[in-house]
């Protein structure tokens, strides 16, 4: 019954919306023009990056906070599950198995490339597709691979150094966002320094985001087994 109601409701909704979308007149306002005017002052050549880190940089700042919150939530959960429910399960009860040589070889091969590629993507972000988040994602993937190759261990709770590294990018962003308050508005970079500042922010974010994204996985991975 419920299934029927929900599905039909979804179908009706979709049909209605599509119907009205088909004859939707052009938008009254077009931000592309505004953005085009703003580009020179934005400090970067790639419009998406300009929006992401300059005109709507404030969104990104909060977005990183969301990511950190998620990491915290994961830390809570993983910490819980480790010191939780079935007492019989101590980490020592895991059987150590050697890594699949293929995997580790692959990891050793890929990681440097990944790092280089990430740096390129980061740098490219200024004037063509790419940027901090993509670079970070690539690094994170490499980290996960290294983990599978058992070169990077999983951890239940991030050590202090890890926490610092994970927050560093956010902190840099925060500081750079706050400095302009002295004279002007939040995140209002002086046009001259804008490019540099954005690059600084992005580099910081790349490291931190990579750690956070990888952390989302590694923190969970540790007790992936042991559910028998």
């Amino acid at each position: 019954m419920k299934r029927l109601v929900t599905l039909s409701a979804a179908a009706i909704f979709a049909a209605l919306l599509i119907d009205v979308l088909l004859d939707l007149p052009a938008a009254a306002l077009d931000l592309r023009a505004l953005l085009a005017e703003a580009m020179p002052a934005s400090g970067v050549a790639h419009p998406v990056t300009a929006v992401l880190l300059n005109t709507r940089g404030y969104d990104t700042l909060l977005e990183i906070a969301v990511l950190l919150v998620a990491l915290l939530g994961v830390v809570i959960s993983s910490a819980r599950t480790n010191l939780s429910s079935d007492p019989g399960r101590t980490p020592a009860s895991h059987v150590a198995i050697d890594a699949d040589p293929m995997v580790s070889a692959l990891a050793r091969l890929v990681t440097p490339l990944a790092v280089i590629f990430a740096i390129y993507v980061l740098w490219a972000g200024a004037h063509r597709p790419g940027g901090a988040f993509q670079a970070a994602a690539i690094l994170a993937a490499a980290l996960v691979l290294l983990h599978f190759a058992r070169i990077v261990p999983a951890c239940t709770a991030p050590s202090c150094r890890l926490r610092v590294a994970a927050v560093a990018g956010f902190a840099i962003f925060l500081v750079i966002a706050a400095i302009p308050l002295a004279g002007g508005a939040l995140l209002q970079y002086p046009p001259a320094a804008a490019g540099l500042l954005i690059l600084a922010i992005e580099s910081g974010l790349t490291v931190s985001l990579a750690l956070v994204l990888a952390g989302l996985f590694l923190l969970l991975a540790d007790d992936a087994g042991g559910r028998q």
Partner: protein
Amino acid sequence: MSAALAFDLLLVALLLLAALRAMTTPRLGQALLAFVVFGLLMALAWVRLDAPDIALAEAAVGAGLSGVLLFDAWRALRGEPPDEASTAEHTR
């Protein structure tokens, strides 16, 4: 143009198919697989929408990281004996 439109239609159809499979296939493993495929198709869609940045991100995250996360969680939930990944930290 029409060729492009045809490609778009095909892509959209595949997208919907993958999405439905991800939600409805009885086997969870296949569902996750379908979801990863869905992520890749999304990346393709973003390319078609002249949004290479999103395509990159989607490929790296939507398909890559989320995929790994999901598969790992799936294995954990099935309560399989710990394999390499899970016991890694104790090998050194």
